[in-house]
């Protein structure tokens, strides 16, 4: 698959179909494949495809330094591609000005693949590889099931302990393709809305905000959890909201470009059993 990928990229660049290809580069075993930006056909050989291609490269499509390079091609796994759908729906990318190279992925391992819903990209301009077998779904209760089996007080204690390690590095935010605000609410300081301090109050406020600003938008790529240097299971919050989104609105972000986004719409049938 790597050779086919390189051939495709060589062709795209030689024919000037795109100015830059965002893909994965070489890495030693056990370390993540770094994102690379190939602009010359002869550099296509720097591209790799393996089970260490963790990063969601769609995050680069909204970064101004990358946009300045011109028309791009991006290498995506099935999970990553869901971000492209949401970005397009939210008018953050011009799909017609993007060449999507979809990789049929056999999985990059837990925990990212625990919630895989799209194994082969569906809307790519070119799909490379066919999938032998989709990653095996986990058996038994997952992290969210175990969390919700606890009492509210136990859950509070769990998150208090987890967030005590948060240093507010915002790796979770920067790595997320859907956190593309030029000025995040945490940067607002006249007045301050979210304390920037890595205190219990500041950390809870940030993580509530991060999770809820991604409600019905998060596509479950698991990058936030992977990026956290303190090992906080951030994805659990996103997962619980994704579950609530499916239960209440039958909506899965990034699956169907035509579907109405949850917060952009409303229905007279929305439940209100909790409203007095």
């Amino acid at each position, binding site marked *: 698959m790597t050779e086919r990928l390189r051939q495709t990229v060589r062709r795209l660049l030689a024919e000037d179909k795109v100015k830059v290809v965002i893909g994965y580069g070489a890495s030693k075993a056990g370390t993540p494949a770094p994102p690379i930006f190939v602009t010359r056909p002869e550099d296509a050989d720097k591209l790799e495809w393996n089970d260490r291609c963790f990063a969601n490269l769609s995050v680069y499509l909204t970064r101004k*330094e990358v946009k300045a390079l011109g028309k791009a091609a991006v290498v995506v796994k099935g999970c990553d591609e869901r971000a492209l759908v949401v970005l397009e729906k939210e008018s953050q990318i011009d799909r017609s000005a993007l060449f999507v190279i979809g990789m049929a992925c056999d999985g990059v391992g837990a925990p990212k693949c625990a919630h895989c819903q799209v194994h082969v990209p569906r809307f790519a301009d070119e799909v490379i590889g066919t999938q032998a077998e989709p990653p095996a779904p986990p058996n038994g209760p997952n992290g969210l099931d175990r969390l919700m089996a606890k009492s509210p007080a136990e859950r509070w204690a769990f998150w208090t302990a987890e967030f005590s*390690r948060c240093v*507010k*590095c915002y790796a979770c935010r920067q*790595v997320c393709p859907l956190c593309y605000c*030029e000025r995040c609410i945490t940067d607002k300081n006249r007045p301050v809305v979210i304390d920037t*301090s890595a205190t219990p109050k*500041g950390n809870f406020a940030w993580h509530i905000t991060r999770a809820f600003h991604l409600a019905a938008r998060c596509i479950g790529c698991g990058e936030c959890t992977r990026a956290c*240097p303190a090992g906080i299971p951030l994805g659990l919050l996103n997962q619980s909201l994704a579950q609530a989104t499916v239960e209440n609105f039958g909506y899965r972000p990034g699956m169907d470009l035509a579907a109405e986004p949850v917060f952009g719409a409303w229905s007279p049938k929305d439940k209100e059993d909790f409203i007095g």
Partner: protein
Amino acid sequence: MSTVLSVADLRGRIAGWIGEGKVVVAPVEVGGRLLYQALSAASQAVFDARRRPANSIKEFFFPRHEPIFRYRLEGKEIVLSDVAPEEREQIVIAAKPCDAAALPILDHVFNWDFEDSFYTARRARTTVISLACAMEDDACFCTSVGSGPADEAGSDAVLYEVEGGFEGRGITEKGGGLFDRTATVRERCEDATVRSLTVAVRKGEIAKYLEGNFESPIWKDLTLACLGCGACAYTCPTCHCFDIVDEGNAAGGARVKNWDSCQFPFFTLHASGHNPRSAQPQRQRQRLFHKFLIYPQKFNAILCTGCGNCERNCPVGLGVRKVLEAIDGELRRVDEKEPVQA
């Protein structure tokens, strides 16, 4: 003669220190990571010369959040109150040498034009016991910046892994209170793999390159992958930038000092709205310059101990080593074209 201490012996000593009301910091397994934490129980401490915690010990001298004074409204008066400096004694045990070596480097800036008494109080009250390193990791490059697996800089005492356990030796007077300074220790780490870049951050050469290459294409090409988070800065033993923020409401609050990262988009945002480092390549360049040119020019110390945390914690595997290697590659290219006169 030195005694060989088992992990149980060391944990026993730790339990004693905790019982005396001291704060004891050691590597702990938590969240699927190894992290330095203040211990609640001696059994948490992990002694493994082959692993490196994902964070650094700087937060026990320079906390991620520190109130520097408090205010409250009493009637029409604003009452300010000082925050008392840390009084409890601290012991950091099983620190990596690359973490301990960062402390003398940080001492310069925290005692420079103004003494940061919050930092110096903690420094005075803390004993650092390092565990000489036996790690083999591609991200490490301590020997390239003048440190090494058995570097004693910043350590008050050192533990060496030997057969059957650990041997300890006091280095400073403070450390001598815990471990005999005259102990002879079989130094197993002398034959540990020398970890370096393809070439060392040779005396002055990286700095000279930086001086002459503010506009190098390296800044743009290599740093496009950088997402602008603070994972590198916050896990780095030597990074020390901070933000001063007033927190609270009309009734009361505090002025606080929080960690800041030069990679955040608004790190250099001016009140006028101008941002001299509005693009990631500029911010990445600044980080390299600060560590390998500016800080050495000011304090004659490289602002890096080669621990590799930046690379390991970076979500996209960047880190200063890769950039240094690129610069090193440039230097070799130039060398080959114009061989140095013998």
